[in-house]
């Protein structure tokens, strides 16, 4: 598929207590796999995937917590420029549901985009001994004006839908994303250009960064 078909890249954050299944949801969505014995998240940074909604193809960069949520120590850096957040709780563990307030608070504190789209996900609905009812989850979502869905990373229930609805809402939110940030990257001969020179986002450090022509000459070139 041609790069030009991608409308934009969206940064999606996975948030919630330890062991609610954040990485499992991510893994199910990206690889369509489930691992029953998955330990605490190690080596999970972010994953990317293309998704097409209403004819628009966007690329998602879905960031995992890297286990830093365990002692509630996510870095503010994690939240920067996030456009969508997936707040996960475990329907069989009420404490993970009550902690959502705290996570929403963190999101408000550190996320620089005030209109970031939030999706509350009640995960592990395949398990018995449910402690949080659908009605409660819905009520919470309504109170905090978030999207809501219930899912099971194990059976894949609700997973795809979760991301699709989130992306749909983001695309419908003007000002939250811009295709501009993406396009200049593939100019002329497909080489990465200095796209960030004037954009709202900063520049990324890469080894093969090609500065704009007006910048490329310095004292040395004069000699």
């Amino acid at each position, binding site marked *: 598929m041609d790069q030009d078909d991608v409308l934009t890249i969206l940064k999606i954050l996975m948030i919630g207590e330890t062991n609610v299944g954040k990485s499992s949801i991510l893994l199910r969505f990206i690889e369509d796999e489930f691992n029953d014995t998955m330990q605490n998240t190690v080596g999970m940074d972010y994953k990317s*995937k293309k998704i097409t909604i209403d004819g628009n193809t966007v690329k998602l960069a879905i960031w995992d917590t890297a286990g830093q949520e365990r002692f509630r120590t996510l870095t503010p850096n994690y939240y920067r420029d996030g456009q969508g957040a997936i707040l996960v709780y475990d329907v069989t563990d009420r404490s993970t549901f009550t902690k959502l307030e705290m996570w929403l608070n963190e999101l408000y504190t550190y996320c620089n985009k005030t209109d970031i789209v939030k999706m509350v996900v009640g995960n592990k609905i395949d398990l018995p001994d449910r402690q949080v009812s659908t009605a409660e989850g819905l009520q919470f979502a309504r109170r905090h004006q978030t999207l809501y869905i219930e899912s099971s990373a194990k059976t894949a229930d609700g997973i795809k839908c979760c991301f699709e609805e989130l992306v749909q809402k983001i695309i419908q939110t003007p000002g939250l994303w811009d295709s501009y940030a993406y396009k200049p990257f593939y100019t002329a001969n497909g080489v990465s250009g200095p796209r960030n020179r004037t954009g709202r986002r900063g520049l990324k*450090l890469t080894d093969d960064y090609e500065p704009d022509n007006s910048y490329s000459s310095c004292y*040395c070139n004069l000699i």
Partner: protein
Amino acid sequence: MDDDLPTEYDVIVVGTGMTESIVAAAASRIGKRVLHLDSNEYYGGLWATFNFDGFQKWMEDLKISKHDSKDFKPDLENGETFLKASNQYSTVENIAEEWFISHEADLPLVLTKDTQTDGSNDTSSLTTEKTDEDKNDKKETKHWSVDRIKKEYRRFNIDLAPKLLYARGELVELLISSNIARYAEFRAVSRVATCMDGKLIQVPCSRADVFANKTVSVIEKRMLMKLLTSCMDQGADSPEFDGYHDKTFLEYLNTKNLTPIVNHYVMQAIAMSTDKTSCRDGVNRTKHFLNSLGRYGNTPFLWPMYGSGELPQCFCRLCAVFGGVYCLKRHLDGVVVSEDKCKAILTGKQRLSLEHLVVGQGHLPPEIVASTGENQISRGIFITDRSIMQGEKENLTLLYYPPEESDQEAVTVIELGPSTNACPQGLFMVHMTCKRTKTAQEDLAYVVKRFLCAKTLESNVSRTPTDSHTQTVATDQHQAQEGDKGANEGTIENPMPQVLWSLYLNLPASDIKLNESAPSNIHLCSGPDLDLDFDFAVNQAKEIFKAMYPSEDFLPRAPDPEEIILEGEEIPGPKFEGDNTSGENEKQDAEKAEKEE
């Protein structure tokens, strides 16, 4: 219990400052079990960046007596000694905060033009605004008041240790080679300024700049090139500099028959030297400056978006991705020492065993400290209403200001605009840093007086911007104030920035040394130093890592997400083929995505 940590580690790192975080990432990266603690509830220690609210809280917390663990009686085995940690080596002093604007948001409305951060501002608007203030391309904006700044606290990012990166400095190279660069974004410093004959001028860094510069003659340009070539080619070891090893950089320059302006550029803007700087240092700094030109922007310098405090966090993220355990708000109570080895630390009633302890200066037991160091840093932070040097677009400015009198220290000024996320549209954030001699306020006074208007603003005066990037305060008001002082040059076309809020503080510039009785597996990390860049911290981290793991690679490139195979995934599952892309394309996508994010 919820907060119980695992109890065995290879490396325990206490403090989330720059050096500590790099070491933590490097150890985790090669598979060591790392625990990273900080007694604060935020990352970065004295390297942190706060929003306005967080900064106020930080100052409040300094007033409250620090954590004390004197009643703590650990259970020790035979031959073990317990050394209590102390925070006496990270004292912040002489905090002075002042507001120069009114509290309430009841001021009359003024008009400012809605602008983009990309700064493509048409210069014609300047004259337009003067003649007709009600132009239709402006929107109404309220004055800045104390209330408004506090209400919009999230739009400020205030650095305790503002530092720049040389485009070819140690940190940039490390961020790229380790693939940690993906966690951060930067802005290029758009101009290097210098003060000449009482006026601020932009130092030409690019060829275009040099050609466009009318203050330097063709002969001077050649002169400059020749000098810079000799610095560039061989550095301080070149025969060119034989005989100047014990002389100052100024003495060397004086032998070159440079014109005053060329001399000024080289001394004050490129080498950032005083008349005491040694020839060697001057040449090396010049070389560093030139090396870094032309890589990312108009000048050799980069500034991290959201502030310097982001960078330690990037390394922490990598550490966590590779399994490092993170716990903030966790005090180090002390260390358990036995037979010249640190065996464990005690924290929150837990005993955690370790092979190596990496510790920031704020957590050392006094028993192992030899000297506390002499250097301290004076800092001034100012929120202003316009740039110290107005331009056609928003600028990120570096200014090195050498002392005017012999009892003053050279001051580094970094001015950040809204596009760095340091402050909202219409405001600027000015950071001043110098070596401490008296209090921060006294040390910086001579520079503040020259560039900023730090007087309380009368609330009943209506103020009009003349330039959309820089102003929320009226020219009239400024001119009146300037007139009163009978002061500076060019006030009519470029009034001094009005200070809305100022803060002074003194920080330790750590050069603490451990004594001989310190266990060899305790590694000390310094706090922020006086240098402009991060190289000191990067080099210190490399040394510590090498002392711990001499044969291991220091932060080899971290794989991209697509290259990682998850734990327990013995055989890679069927390759996911979505969206008609082949595996190869996906990998390319990933690489491109990474550059973009």
